[in-house]
């Protein structure tokens, strides 16, 4: 119930921010910030005060929704979703902060969309009725697309379109799989059901489940994204406003991984196991190809976007390794990448605000005039190429260790991605912050320091004390 209220409250807060901005200029961002902080607190209190530890999926509410299909409004929480929702809250607040001055037009509507996206994302993480899950899956897309299309950069509409079409087409495949599974339940038990816990009890023969799994897999692979269906991501990331990129990289990609965990691997373990070699191949290709593509980019955000593809390859590799170390690695990578890519995109936004360009050729030598920014850029680039001590290292290390036990050859190739990541990390940092100073920029301001500082602190905290995350079992 609390969760439902939180989602509704987000919607309401978004609406009121929209209206409020019309009357009092500048009120929307404060409203959004306060609402997010408050609701995040409410969520934290709710989780803390709950009587169980959410090691297993805890169904929180079940209400009948569409009776003709036995569709329910049912939501549940477990540690995996709690971690991801927490990440969502954090990044949401950061999103509001990075948009503070960046968004100048239609401010109220912007925050409405932002909060709506957050609500959708939280819905995705908690829905256990598959129809509801799909519902939220799409609902989070709409405002996100709006954010890209309205407040993005020069080529925003194309990017938004591409983003939406990719996800929509793939999610229709998932919808077919959802329907298929639901009706398989009908055939087996005589009762149509889209209720996830019901599905877990199903015994689906491999010959069927491999197709069903594939439907789910495609949707999540697009969202993750994995080569060869990744190409929406560079465009979307590049064209989105900073907060959009942060949210996309930080949370939206995680919904893909979340789906892979919950609806591919847990639901169709046999089929996934059978599919693992293909998935691992895709993962490895993503890692290496993403790193290689990142190196070739001239655009700061595009580079980071390709690096995301590379990082998400690690997640996929780890998930299809089917052991707990890799699984933990995947989850840490999710969080770490959420933070580090969010940080890099924020930095890109900050640079863009100063020089009105994302092009690396327009950058150079910023360290001289903006040492603090340079320091943060280095740290975040370091996180991106897996510098030990930062969270990404733990994630990648765990993923690789876990994956190595199962598929050494793939893992070795994946490890080569470390070299690739160093290369693009260096290119990113050096071309923008080193070399002859092309122009002087203003160093980070307090608000920006707060954003970067908090992200770096979290990265460090997880990197140096990963038990924070690893103490949870995440349903294994």
């Amino acid at each position, binding site marked *: 119930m609390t969760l439902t209220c939180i989602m509704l409250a987000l919607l309401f807060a978004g609406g009121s921010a929209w209206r409020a901005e019309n009357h009092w200029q500048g009120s929307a961002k404060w409203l959004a910030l306060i609402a997010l902080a408050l609701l995040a607190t409410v969520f934290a209190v709710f989780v803390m005060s709950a009587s169980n530890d959410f090691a297993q999926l805890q169904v929180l509410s079940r209400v009948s929704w569409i009776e003709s299909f036995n569709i329910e409004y049912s939501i549940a929480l477990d540690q995996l979703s709690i971690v991801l929702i927490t990440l969502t809250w954090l990044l949401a607040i950061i999103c509001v902060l990075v948009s503070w001055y960046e968004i100048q037009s239609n401010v109220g509507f912007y925050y409405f969309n932002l909060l709506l996206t957050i609500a959708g994302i939280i819905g995705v993480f908690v829905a256990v009725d598959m129809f509801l899950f799909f519902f939220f899956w799409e609902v989070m897309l709409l405002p996100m697309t709006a954010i890209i299309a309205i407040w993005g950069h020069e080529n925003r509409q194309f990017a938004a379109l591409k983003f939406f079409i990719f996800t929509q087409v793939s999610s229709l495949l998932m919808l077919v799989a959802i329907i298929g599974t639901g009706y398989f339940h009908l055939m087996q038990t005589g009762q149509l059901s889209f209720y996830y816990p019901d599905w877990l009890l199903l015994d689906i023969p491999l010959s069927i489940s491999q197709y069903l799994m594939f439907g789910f897999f495609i949707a999540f692979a697009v969202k993750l994204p994995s*080569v*060869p*269906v*990744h*190409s929406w991501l*560079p465009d979307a990331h590049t064209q989105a406003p900073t907060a959009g990129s942060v949210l996309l990289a930080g949370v939206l990609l995680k919904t893909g991984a979340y789906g892979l965990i919950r609806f591919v691997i847990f639901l169709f373990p046999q089929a996934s196991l059978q599919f693992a070699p293909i998935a691992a191949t895709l993962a490895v290709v993503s890692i290496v190809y993403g790193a*290689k*593509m990142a*190196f*070739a*980019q001239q655009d700061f955000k595009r580079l980071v976007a390709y690096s995301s593809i590379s990082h998400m390859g690690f997640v996929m590799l780890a998930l299809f390794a089917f*052991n*707990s*170390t890799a699984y933990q690695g995947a989850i840490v990578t999710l969080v770490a990448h959420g933070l580090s890519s969010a940080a890099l995109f924020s930095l890109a936004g900050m640079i863009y605000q100063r020089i009105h360009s994302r092009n690396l050729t327009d950058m150079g*030598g910023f*360290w*001289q005039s903006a*040492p603090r920014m340079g*320091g943060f850029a*280095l740290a975040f680039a*370091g996180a991106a190429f897996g*510098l*030990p*001590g930062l969270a990404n*290292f*733990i994630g990648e*290390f*765990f993923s*690789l*260790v876990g994956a*190595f*036990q199962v598929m*050494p050859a793939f*893992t*070795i190739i994946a*490890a*080569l991605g*470390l*070299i690739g990541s*160093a*290369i693009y990390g*260096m*290119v990113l940092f*050096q071309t923008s*912050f*080193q*070399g*002859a*100073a092309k122009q002087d920029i203003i160093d980070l301001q307090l608000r920006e320091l707060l954003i970067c500082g908090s992200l770096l602190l979290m990265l460090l905290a997880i990197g*140096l*004390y*990963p*038990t924070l995350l*690893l103490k949870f079992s995440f349903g294994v």
Partner: protein
Amino acid sequence: MNVLLASLPFYPFVSFLLLIFFGKRLSWRLAATISVSSMAISALVSAILLFELSVTKNQVMTANLWHWFELSYAMGSSDVNVRFYLDGLSAVMISVVTGVGFLIHLFAAIYMKSDVNFSRFMAYMNLFIVAMLILVLADNLVLLYLGWEGVGLCSFLLIGFWYQEQSNVLAARKAFIVTRIGDTSMAIGLLLLFNSFGQLNIEAVTLLAEQANSLSAGTNAESADNIYWIALLLLGGAVGKSAQLPLQTWLPDAMAGPTPVSALIHAATMVTAGVYLIARMHGIFLLAPEVMNYVAWLGALTLLLAGIAALAQTDIKRVLAYSTMSQIGYMMLALGAGAWTAGVFHLMTHAFFKALLFLTAGAVIYALHHQQNLFKMGGLLKKLPFESSLFIIGLICLMALPGTSGFFSKEAIIAQLWSSDTAGPMLWWCAILGALLTSIYSCRLFFLGFLGKARFNENVQLKKSSLLRTSLIILALLSLFGGLIPLDLTLVFSSVMNLPLAQLTEPTWLHTVAIITPFIGMVFSWFYFKSYRISHLAGKEHILQPNNGRFVVFCRQGLGFDGLYKKLFIMPYQWLAQINKNDIFDQIIMLNAWYVGLWHDALVLVQNGSLRWYLAAFGLAIMLLLGVSLL
């Protein structure tokens, strides 16, 4: 848990934080005081630790800071802690790191005084010490890897310290990426290691490896295979960090950094991390004799290659850089031959004299207004007598003239080569040849830089600082007498003793040859480089130009490795990146969009607004459908 041990890296770390956060606001004096004193404290603490260690019974101290994470594998799980482990080997290393580090900090504080980013510089230096200490003290390989990457990052930062110069930036990038290749190999090694033993703790791994070996006694082919591969992959890491073949190319370029950096990182400490790694993991390496052999050969080849390359250099720092490579080659050779103690001993003495050489070179360069070209120096012996004499001390140590520290360590290595199973006479001859080359390029360097007539016009500028001189003098003393430090690492390498060594009969002339080799080189140089030495007499200084013959240039560029790698790896990668800049997958997908657009354009032509055509189409459709249904 030993608080002193646990706190060791934190002194420089605190200094680093202070300097990074308040750097802009600190005066030079304060910044210098903070960083140098933090190093002084570290040095002091390590001295105390050294003392404590020597009185403890099993000569091992540990300090567990916190639980880092737990790794699980098929058969169980093992903890990975942030835990420091001090034994004889790491004790040597921390003394070198803190001791030499302190001296270099002291030097740097004065040397870099005028730089606007002084505090940043010192902060990096401090951070480097932190990472190096973690590397050295790590009790498990993951923590070691943390330090390993940390020093890499600091090295990157310091090479590119003057980042406005594009060449420095590129050098920094190259250093980072080339070492990263080694690191990746090491990381894969770690994965394989963990997969084989379920442990990443160094002691535990060593123990397990020995157990596995003794239990299976070579019957378990897979395990032996694994150990072989683990050793090889770890060697990859070591090779990268220590600038050995085939990943040696970054080190000469790394001289782009400020000279104290070259002294600290690229001569005394970081580059020897590879040596340290192999020494640390000797348990594994001993079980893979083939890899030991590779280590020796790699060392020997690097030794020769670097020696030859050093002969052709014109830049004083690059000569020293190649010389560092070649000396590390010696260490590798020692390790490969199983002369663990000798290798580590050489590591230590080399740290002393190479730091001295670099710092003195730095002083000289500073005096000549940042002139690094040997051919534009000359006659410095007269103009800078103090620096020159220190330089001479450094050089004689490098040449291993009897009595110096270099002599003791190098002699210890050469002595064990002939009879080692993993080395042998061939490698012994390599080592001797290397020693000859060392003395020749040392002499050449000396003649060119310090003898003859001055080939520069400006007045020399001098930093008159007693602190600076003190640091140099202490280093000189260490270089001269460091060989007398009794280094006993038998406890660390105790497993070596358990292995039976095949005793080859050593010829009696071995030692004689080894001792006189440097002198042969000197005599040879005395005549061969006559023109360098006495150019002022002939009055034809204008002729004194570097030989730009093809072969010499080839040698000067590190025997063409750079070019080879560029053609082999860099250019294909860039080419691939360039041709696929638009992402082939994206293009394939967008092709569909284009295709749909094409269909649209074609179909629009059909919708031509003509009623009669619409009617005809109606009939046509029915006709076609009927036709199909008839078929």
